[in-house]
């Protein structure tokens, strides 16, 4: 009985220290990416190629989802606003929800499951098939050649994708609100233009999506690089990328929002 308790405490302790150790390793890995970023900046073609794979291939899902989210916002927003007789404020509601929150957050969640998982799987498979080892033996650092370009591609793609998501969302809200329901077109756009602030709303949204880009890309490349080099190891790492980065995005969103919009 007593030994069982001791054993379970010990097991718990080991789990905790393992996690902390892994977090430390992930942080060192983060630093290593920065130290070895020279190649991906000097030979920017490498990064461009990865932007194609991560960014462009996520485009369809981001655009379509943005459109639907905007359309739903149009419906829900109108329903609420018209109770207070202020349905022409629909433009503000749609734009602010998208630019401040839904654009960066939903685009990041989609990006994590579309591109983050792909990055993890790709790097993990390169590890499992000894391609990373082979590269090392050819005197080419895999962090510089494989990891850093994918990291920067993710970081650069994320704000652009979030912006496109918001733009599609505004368009979707316009379609539903103005074309379908019949909110006045002039007040929809002019109120939106008057109330969305560049610094306060747009810039903060861009900062958010940039931070999410760093989080997703870091988790994705780390999980791939750290994956156990077997088929199960890679599939487990892919799942962890999606779960961990989704949680991290939502937590980071709360913290960033608390700093950015203090009801000033």
């Amino acid at each position, binding site marked *: 009985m007593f030994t069982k308790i001791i054993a379970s405490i010990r097991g718990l302790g080991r789990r905790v220290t393992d996690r902390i150790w892994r977090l430390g390793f992930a942080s060192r890995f983060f630093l290593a990416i920065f130290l070895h970023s020279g190649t991906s900046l000097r030979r920017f073609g490498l990064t461009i190629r990865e932007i194609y794979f991560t960014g462009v291939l996520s485009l369809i899902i981001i655009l379509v989802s943005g459109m639907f989210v905007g359309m739903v916002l149009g419906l829900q927003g109108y329903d609420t606003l018209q109770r207070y007789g202020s349905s022409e404020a629909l433009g503000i509601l749609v734009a602010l929800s998208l630019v401040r929150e839904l654009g960066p957050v939903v685009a990041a969640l989609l990006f994590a499951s579309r591109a983050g998982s792909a990055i993890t799987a*790709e790097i993990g*498979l*390169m590890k499992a*098939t*000894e*391609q990373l*080892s*082979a*590269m*090392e*033996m*050819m*005197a*080419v*650092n895999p962090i510089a*050649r494989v990891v850093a370009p994918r990291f920067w591609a993710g970081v650069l793609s994320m704000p652009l994708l979030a912006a496109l998501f918001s733009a599609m969302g505004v368009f979707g809200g316009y379609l539903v609100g103005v074309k379908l329901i019949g909110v006045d077109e002039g007040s929809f756009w002019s109120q939106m233009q008057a109330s969305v602030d560049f610094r306060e709303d747009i810039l903060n949204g861009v900062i958010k999506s940039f931070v999410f880009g760093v989080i997703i890309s870091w988790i994705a490349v780390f999980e791939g690089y750290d994956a156990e080099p077997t088929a199960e190891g890679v599939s487990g790492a892919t799942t962890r990328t999606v779960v961990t980065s989704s949680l991290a995005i939502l937590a980071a969103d709360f913290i960033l929002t608390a700093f950015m919009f203090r009801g000033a």
Partner: protein
Amino acid sequence: MPVEPLVKISNLSFAYDNRPVLTGINMEIHRGKVVAIMGSSGCGKTTTLRLLGGQLKPTSGYVSVGGQVVHELGDDALYALRRRMGMLFQFGALFTDMSVYDNVAFQMREHTDLPDQLIHDLVLMKLNAVGLRGVHHLMPSELSGGMARRVALARAIALDPMLIMYDEPFAGLDPISLSIVGQLIRTLNDALGACSIVVTHDVQESLKIVDYVYFVSEGKIVAEGTAEEIRNSKAPYVHQFVWGEADGPVPFQYPARPYGDAILREVPRVH
């Protein structure tokens, strides 16, 4: 004055965590030679190659290549040394997102400023050497196992290395590809004036091409000699390995309690 060997392994030991894999290995390999390291699976052959390439650090002893102790080198010096080594990985490890041409050109592009035209000629030359000039536009997934191995070989010799290492180059090949790869190892080594280390458990094929053989068992060198000496060896372990006998000094049974005990006494408990 004796010539300094290109590769010297001195009293080398290595352990994963606390599990010893290699204990007190000594080898000397000279330029121009093709040497085989043989032993059953899991005896530490791949580990030896990784120690040579500086991907692992020895627990004690050292490995030196071209007069430099590998584990004492800094990052830059180690990378400089690796440019003069070629390694063929067990399953080829071709970059799956690049064509055959780009795989072979990889190191030339990364490490030299050669113009594209020259790289083109060099790549085709390397592919020609392994008889695969015609497949330069294919992706690795479109190659057969034997062809992938030969492309990986072309990639390994891209920068004319002084030391070429082969990890199980014969595993999983059909008899024809097998002898092609065997012949290539020998001819490329002689053409480059390099030194080759072939890690394998394929005795018959490698005895045809190598100059010298080391037998590793349980982390130690248990026998060594020229191909001829090994073929005629009376040492029980070597004999068992060379002639592929199921039972001998390497027992068929994994160590276990006496069979009688196990059958009679280990009655499964039923609750």
